[in-house]
Structures are given as structure tokens and as C-alpha cells.
């Protein structure tokens, strides 16, 4: 192979700046989408576990719809199709006046998609708390909302910390799909460095290292949190 390695390119202006901006954008998109995914997903998961009839039909439909359509397609739908379906004024506002429409769209698409996966985990976590717990809570006169807030959810959240960690890592990696609608996140920036400098190996290696480092940091942090909130006297689960 005849490749002239030049790691120095990564530290030259403007490429170092591009990498930094890419990292910042990846983190911003991931974290903002995660806020949507976690809050909406928890809400849907709670209703899905506790409700019946129309509500359960609605939550079930949300989960099936958003979980089963490929994320890339969802991203395209939100970016290219939804503005056309909306009333004209709203569509124009989305395309022209909304600041950074591609970033906002990526966040919303990623957030709504991941919310469906979070909902499934939260519902499973609540189901894993024994029926006797909710019975004891209700027997003591706690309302349904209080029973969820003080008894069921605190236990369910401990159960779902490991799957939530992997959901966050998935959102983080999936944020690279945002480059398809023009978001200059980490992967897009490395691609740009490659096309400007022809030093693609260095750029992509740098991106790989960054993704892995951040993932490792998140995993470590979550392990610390998991240990911190583990229930004393119970043997830690594997």
C-alpha cells in the first residue's frame, strides 16, 4: 500500500477545528435527542404498563411505528416529507425560518425514534417490579400516581439502568446518520477532512478513537451510577 501517513494534518488549522466542531455537534445532537427520548419514552412506557384500552392502543401504536421504521428513513421523512404535508405556512417556516433546520430535525427524529425503544425498556422494568409492591402501595392508601412515583418507578429505573446505557450509546452512534440530512457532526467533519486533505485514514481513525473514548466514559459513568444507587443488601445483578 502506497499511503503517505501524516498524522500532523489532524492538528493543523482548520482541520483540528473541524474535528472539534464535529465532536461538539455529535454531543449536542445526542444529548438533546436523549432528553426527548428519555422523557417521552418514560412517559409512554409508564402509560403502556399501567393503562388498558385506548391509551394502551395509542402507546402500543407509537412503539410499533417508531421502532419498526428504519431510522434513516425516519430522518428523511421528517426532513423532506413532513414539511410538505404541513399547512403551507408551517412548512415554509420549517424550511426557511427555523434556525438550523437540519440539526433540529435530526434531534427530533433521533429523539422520537429512541423514545420508542426507551418506552419498551421502561415498561419492562415496571413489569419486573413485583405485583405485590403495587398492591402494598395501594393498600396503604397511596394513589396510583404516588405508587408509581415512590414505589414502582424508583425500582424500575434501577432495573433499566443497563439497557438505558446501551440506548444512550446507540443514540450517540446513530447521531452519525444525521450527516445524511446535512448535519456537520463528527463523521461528516472527518469525511470533509478526508476530501480536503486526502488523509482519510488519519481522519477516520481519529473519529473512531473519539467515539470509543466517549462511549467508554459513558459506560464507566453509568457503572458508577448503578453501583451508587444499588439497593443495599441485595446482591448486585450481573
Amino acid at each position: 500500500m502506497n499511503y503517505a501517513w501524516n498524522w500532523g494534518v489532524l492538528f493543523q488549522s482548520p482541520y483540528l477545528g473541524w474535528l472539534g466542531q464535529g465532536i461538539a455537534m455529535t454531543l449536542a445532537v445526542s444529548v438533546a435527542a436523549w432528553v426527548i427520548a428519555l422523557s417521552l419514552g418514560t412517559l409512554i412506557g409508564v402509560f403502556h404498563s399501567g393503562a388498558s384500552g385506548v391509551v394502551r392502543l395509542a402507546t402500543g401504536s407509537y412503539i410499533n411505528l417508531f421502532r419498526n421504521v428504519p431510522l434513516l428513513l425516519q430522518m428523511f421523512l421528517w426532513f423532506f416529507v413532513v414539511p410538505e404535508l404541513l399547512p403551507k405556512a408551517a412548512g415554509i417556516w420549517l424550511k426557511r425560518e427555523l434556525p438550523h433546520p437540519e440539526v433540529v430535525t435530526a434531534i427530533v427524529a433521533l429523539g422520537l425514534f429512541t423514545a420508542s425503544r426507551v418506552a419498551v425498556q421502561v415498561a419492562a422494568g415496571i413489569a419486573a417490579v413485583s405485583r405485590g409492591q403495587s398492591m402494598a402501595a395501594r393498600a396503604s392508601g397511596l394513589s396510583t400516581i404516588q405508587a408509581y412515583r415512590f414505589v414502582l418507578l424508583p425500582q424500575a429505573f434501577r432495573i433499566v439502568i443497563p439497557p438505558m446505557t446501551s440506548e444512550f450509546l446507540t443514540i450517540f452512534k446513530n447521531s452519525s446518520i444525521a450527516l445524511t440530512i446535512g448535519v456537520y457532526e463528527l463523521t461528516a467533519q472527518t469525511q470533509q477532512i478526508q476530501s480536503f486533505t486526502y488523509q482519510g485514514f488519519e481522519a477516520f481513525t481519529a473519529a473512531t478513537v473519539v467515539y470509543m473514548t466517549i462511549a467508554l466514559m459513558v459506560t464507566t459513568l453509568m457503572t458508577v451510577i448503578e453501583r451508587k444507587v444499588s439497593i443495599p443488601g441485595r446482591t448486585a445483578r450481573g
Partner: protein
Amino acid sequence: MNDMVEMIRIEGLSKSYGDVAVLRNCSLDVARGEVVVICGPSGSGKSTFVKCINGIEPVQAGRIAIDGENLPSKPAAAARVRARVGMVFQHFELYPHLTVLENVCLAQIHVLKRSRDEAQEKARSLLRRVGLADKEASYPAQLSGGQQQRIAIVRALAMDPVAMLFDEPTSALDPEMIGEVLAVMLELAREGMTMVVVTHKMGFAKAAADRVVFMDQGEIVEVAETARFFAEPASERARLFLSRILTH
């Protein structure tokens, strides 16, 4: 307070899961300060009956009144009445993520709206009574089954209930821990607490119960004064049940 003699009135209670009738037209009055033991074969509906008394299981037919107050048929609306009836479960059901003190205070604070200090004071004095004052900072999983069940009883008592329901409170315990839980229950009975106790501990029934209820196949087959029930049960089914359980 109500001057009526009955603390718990149950009239014509029926419940089914789908097509399966689990309770058929059950009626029972429990007087203020009375201790009633419910026994019967497995699957006869004892647990279901007790859960219906404080409305955590909805029923298809029948009326329940606690201390003269009708239990609303909607489970959500029944919360206020339910808070006045303590319940103790076979598997304790302490909240594993909360300390002993927090377990005992939770409903006091959020249902009775007591201040944290008031709730903790109440909790501590009750924990002292059952000899577990030094465990207030422990978590349930750090305690023995007998200790957990005594704390579950304390948690219920902290709500100043007008009556207490027990569903096989000792059957998940190792034999050496049964005594400590029964002792707490006996003391409660002596102090005049109204109690409905599902148990197969016939020793407890003889020592504490005013009357014994025998259930079979979702029906209340027999209700008798304790001494009578053990000496000469009226129904053939109760006789058979007793002969089986007492020879064990």
C-alpha cells in the same frame, strides 16, 4: 368514630376472574375489637377475600363498609378508606429501595400528610415496641424474614388503622421466626385491634381468635366461635380440613 358494633361489614360479596367464580356471595361482619381467623384449603379464595375487604381487588357484586363508611366500588376512589385498614402480606412487600424508617413513613407523609418529624416519631415509637429500633437505617434485604414482617406490621400500624388484615403472614417464614411475628400479632389482638387473619397456624387461632371462618371453593362455609369450631365443626368439609391440618 362510629358507635356501630361492626367495624367491617361485608354483604353478598361475589367476584370472578373471567368465567371462574372465586368468591360466591360471601357475607361477614367483624365487630370492633374482634379477631377473626380465616382458614380453608388452598385456592378457596381466602387471599382474594381479604384483598376485597380493602378494595385492592374490584368485586362484581356486594357491599363493604369499614367503620360505617361504604367502600366506593371504584378502586381509585377507595384510597381514603383503604388507608384506614392496614394490610400485611405473605411476602412482606416492604419497599426494597427504602430504609426501614422510610418504609414506615412513606404513606404517613403522602397519604395522611403528616410532617416528616411527626411521621418519624411515630415510626420510631412503633419500631421500639416490636424491638427493632436499631434497624431504622437498614434496608429490607439486610434483615431476616421475621424482622421484615414485623416491620411490615409496623408500617401498617403507623397509619393508625381501625382494622388490620393479614394474609398468611407467617407462611413465608423459616420456622424459627414464626414465633416473633405471632407474638406481635397476639399483643395487637390483646390491645383490642380489629383483625382479620388468614392463617393455618391453628395455635394462633386458638389463642387469639374470637371466631373462625372456614372457606371452601369461594364460599364461606362456616363461621363459628373459636372453641366451638375446633371442638365440633358443623360442616363435613371443615371437619375434613381440620383433621388434615391438625395431623400435620
